[in-house]
């Protein structure tokens, strides 16, 4: 099930189980790997446990009363213990949380300062800031504005810029397309791809927009209720009939869906999970 190239993987998640509030079992033995320098997509429907997976990796889980009860994580060849999230950021893991989570009462500039919080090299930060403005020129005009007053797209740009400024080796993005206009989504994904290519940042991408995510990734995992049910190189996933049907919204042969097919979808889905 897991990708087998452990040697070049920057991150491996091995059979983890996550429990919330001591009772709710959310991840039931999940494994995945992110090869160094690649983009990996983690897909699945609402409540499949995608965000939980990211929080388990970034260490934010305990803040929501979640805990990893089984399995382990390996980052750059080293096992992760129960480090607090701020330490993991220093090690190179940065999560762009779902819903952007910009600091609304802070200006754009101050938000960017927070992104670079762990950095000590001022000149490097300055260079990276220029990179951000290169990717998202609009942020430069908004520097003094309160982040709470930015549009959703601008907030997402700000959230990604904060991540860039932390200069992570592994960037995890949780639903960057959430609530954005389709055109903007395309722009954001193009930039995610560019960041991956230019900065060499490995990226783990959680999405509901499967089409977009598979378009930029090289490998994909599909989750259903706390488990990976399908994984493989993107080409294979795209060719897979189930994926086409369930995630890309194409009926067999690209025809319109009939009610029978919807029923079939539900049955198949139940079977898959």
């Amino acid at each position: 099930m897991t990708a087998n190239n452990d040697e070049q993987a920057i991150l491996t998640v091995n059979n983890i189980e996550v429990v919330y509030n001591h009772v709710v079992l959310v991840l039931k033995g999940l494994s995945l790997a992110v090869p160094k320098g690649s983009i990996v997509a983690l897909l699945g429907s609402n409540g499949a446990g995608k965000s939980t997976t990211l929080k388990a990796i970034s260490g934010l889980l305990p803040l929501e009363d979640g805990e990893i009860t089984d399995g382990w994580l390996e980052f750059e060849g080293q096992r992760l213990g129960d480090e607090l999230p701020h330490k993991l950021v220093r090690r190179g893991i940065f999560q762009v949380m779902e819903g952007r989570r910009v600091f609304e009462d802070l200006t754009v500039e101050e938000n960017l300062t927070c992104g670079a919080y762990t950095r000590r090299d001022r000149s490097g930060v300055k260079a990276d800031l220029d990179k951000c403005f290169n990717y998202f020129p609009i942020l430069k005009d908004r520097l003094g504005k309160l982040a709470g007053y930015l549009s959703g797209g601008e907030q997402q740009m700000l959230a990604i810029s904060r991540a860039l400024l932390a200069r992570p080796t592994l960037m995890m993005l949780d639903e960057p397309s959430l609530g954005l206009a389709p055109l903007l989504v395309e722009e954001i994904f193009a930039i995610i791809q560019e960041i991956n290519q230019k900065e060499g940042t490995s990226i783990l991408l959680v999405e509901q927009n499967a089409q977009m995510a598979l378009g930029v990734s090289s490998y994909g995992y599909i989750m259903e209720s706390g488990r990976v049910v399908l994984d493989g190189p993107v080409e294979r996933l795209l060719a897979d009939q189930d994926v086409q049907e369930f995630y890309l919204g194409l009926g067999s042969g690209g025809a319109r869906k009939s009610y029978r097919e919807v029923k079939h979808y539900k049955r198949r889905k139940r079977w898959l999970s």
Partner: protein
Amino acid sequence: MDILAQLIVSGIAVGGVYALIALGFVVIYKATSIINFATGEFMMIGAYFFYTFLVMVGMPPIPSFLMVMLCSAMLGLFIERAILRHMLGQPTISIVMVTIGLSSILMGLAEMIWSTDFKNFPPLFPRAPIILGDIIIRSNLFWGFIVAMLAVAAFALLFKYAKVGVAMRATAGDQMAAFSMGINVRTMFTVAWSLGAIAAALGGVIIGNIGGIQPTLGNIGLKIFPVVILGGLDSIAGAVVGGFIVGLVENIAGGYLDPYVGGGVKDLAPFVVLVLILLIKPYGLFGKEDIERL
């Protein structure tokens, strides 16, 4: 007219000191959402620290002042690490009770260490009152106001421009997101308690210098509640404005009404205004009504 001008000026001067103490409260509330009922006692202990270094140890005023800052920072740090950190996630009422208990403990400790005797600082500033036109201000009040304003300005600059200040505001806004930026939120809590204790202690030194000190000095701390509620619990600018309003209200009301009712208006007026303002604006004048977006 002269009387009014006089009352306004001394009201502003006292208000500046209230602003500083209220700032100490707001810093802690904003970062940690804890209502610190021991703010007044932080103030009182700060005044005793100053007395200790200045009179008992015999250090010059400015080093004593710096020592007060250092010691109260340590006090705030200790209290946060030893007690309040373990209260994270507990019900608000428990945490409030802890801070109330803390205030009694600090008061008791002060009685044990420094006795209940009334104490005065030796004069720090020239005795001659400051005369501005027709208005006369007691020199201790005048200089106290200047020191308070400098301290408030220093805090404002810290929060606006220093990296740690920005990180503290980020923490106040969204703890989880702050964590995800690599900010150690727990450290920010400690820093907030230290800064809060420093602000209150400086206010205590100023008030002690005006009126002398004793372990009940912390009762003045109750006055910061009208101040912070006026200004909104989580607004630093509000604390400053609220401080001035309370200073003005109590001086003007006291000055005009005391002769008719035989005193006491000064202590009562701020709370009357407090109730009135809360009736109209339940979140305070500057408090956040939790901006909803999306």
